[in-house]
């Protein structure tokens, strides 16, 4: 399923941006969680709680699953004001729990739920976000393995460079994957959502290269990057294919 990335071709790429605002959500996460805890991935255990999405009309929020609730919650915290804001919604696994339920129903010979199917697609959160805000701004939905957030940020930065917008809302949300997929679980398999309103600037610099060693970081890229958002000066993240260095104020 995973197509190998030509890391050599990407080796010289770096990404610079500034953070206009940001927000993170995880079960039990304190608002003043220090940067080191994000970098180490030592967040509270999953208590099954759901983030608040009461800002959405009841008819829009009624069927949302946890991944979408998390995405829309942090998107609203980072960009609460109405108005048009181009956005990128990223997720490694998307609505995997919902898709798994649909597949299990099909295997039992049941008719799939049309409503559940409509919310299982990868841009479902982006769609609900656009409807709720009445915002026709351009929107993408990205899934790119454990680097999904990196490519979402690159997408955002490219759009700013093209001059069509001065800011882009980047949202990444993943729930823990369902038990059926545990043999394929990533090192960091915990619910976490991060939203960043990205603008032009040099606050943050990310550089990446092929992960030459077999070292994989305990925290996912979104959790690690939240550490940079929370004030850490430096981030070293090792994923399944890439290693990323992040610097603040470089």
């Amino acid at each position: 399923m995973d197509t190998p990335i030509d890391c050599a071709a990407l080796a010289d790429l770096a990404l610079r941006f500034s953070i206009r605002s940001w927000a993170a959500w995880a079960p039990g996460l304190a608002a003043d969680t220090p940067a080191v805890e994000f970098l180490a991935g030592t967040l509270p255990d999953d208590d099954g709680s759901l983030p608040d999405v009461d800002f959405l009309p009841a008819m829009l929020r009624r069927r949302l699953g946890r991944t979408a609730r998390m995405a829309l919650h942090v998107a609203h915290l980072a960009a609460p004001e109405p108005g048009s804001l181009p956005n990128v919604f990223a997720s490694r696994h998307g609505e995997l729990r919902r898709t798994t339920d649909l597949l299990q129903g099909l295997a039992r010979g049941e008719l799939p739920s049309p409503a559940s199917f409509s919310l299982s697609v990868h841009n479902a959160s982006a769609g609900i976000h656009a409807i709720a805000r009445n915002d026709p701004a351009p929107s993408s939905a990205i899934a790119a393995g454990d680097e999904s957030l990196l490519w979402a940020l690159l997408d955002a930065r490219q759009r700013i460079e093209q001059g069509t917008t001065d800011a882009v809302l980047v949202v990444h949300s993943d729930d823990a994957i369902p038990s059926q997929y545990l043999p394929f679980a990533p090192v960091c398999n915990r619910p976490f959502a991060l939203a960043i309103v990205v603008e032009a600037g040099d606050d943050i610099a990310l550089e990446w290269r092929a992960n030459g060693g077999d070292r994989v970081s305990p925290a996912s890229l979104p959790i690690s990057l939240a550490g940079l958002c929370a004030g850490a000066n430096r981030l070293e993240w090792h994923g399944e294919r890439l290693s990323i260095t992040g610097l603040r104020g470089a």
Partner: protein
Amino acid sequence: MHALEAAIKELIVDALQLEDVRPEDIETNEPLFGDGLGLDSIDALELGVALKKQFGLTLATNDPAIKDHFRSVGTLARLIASQQDAKVCQ
């Protein structure tokens, strides 16, 4: 017919996960879509599947009268009752 209408109202609240609506809040003859209860096109599909599961309702998607059948709880109850009567006759 009243019991059937009540069962349909309960099904609508359950299947469509209406948070702020109780079955008894739904008027038998109020429109389900648009201005009435405010359901959308995905709800129409979801409701069709739920009615099929619970009442064995069969729907032909090319039936021009389908919009009229889905207008309200009352019209749905009459459709289900007529199909059940037809099955008894067979």
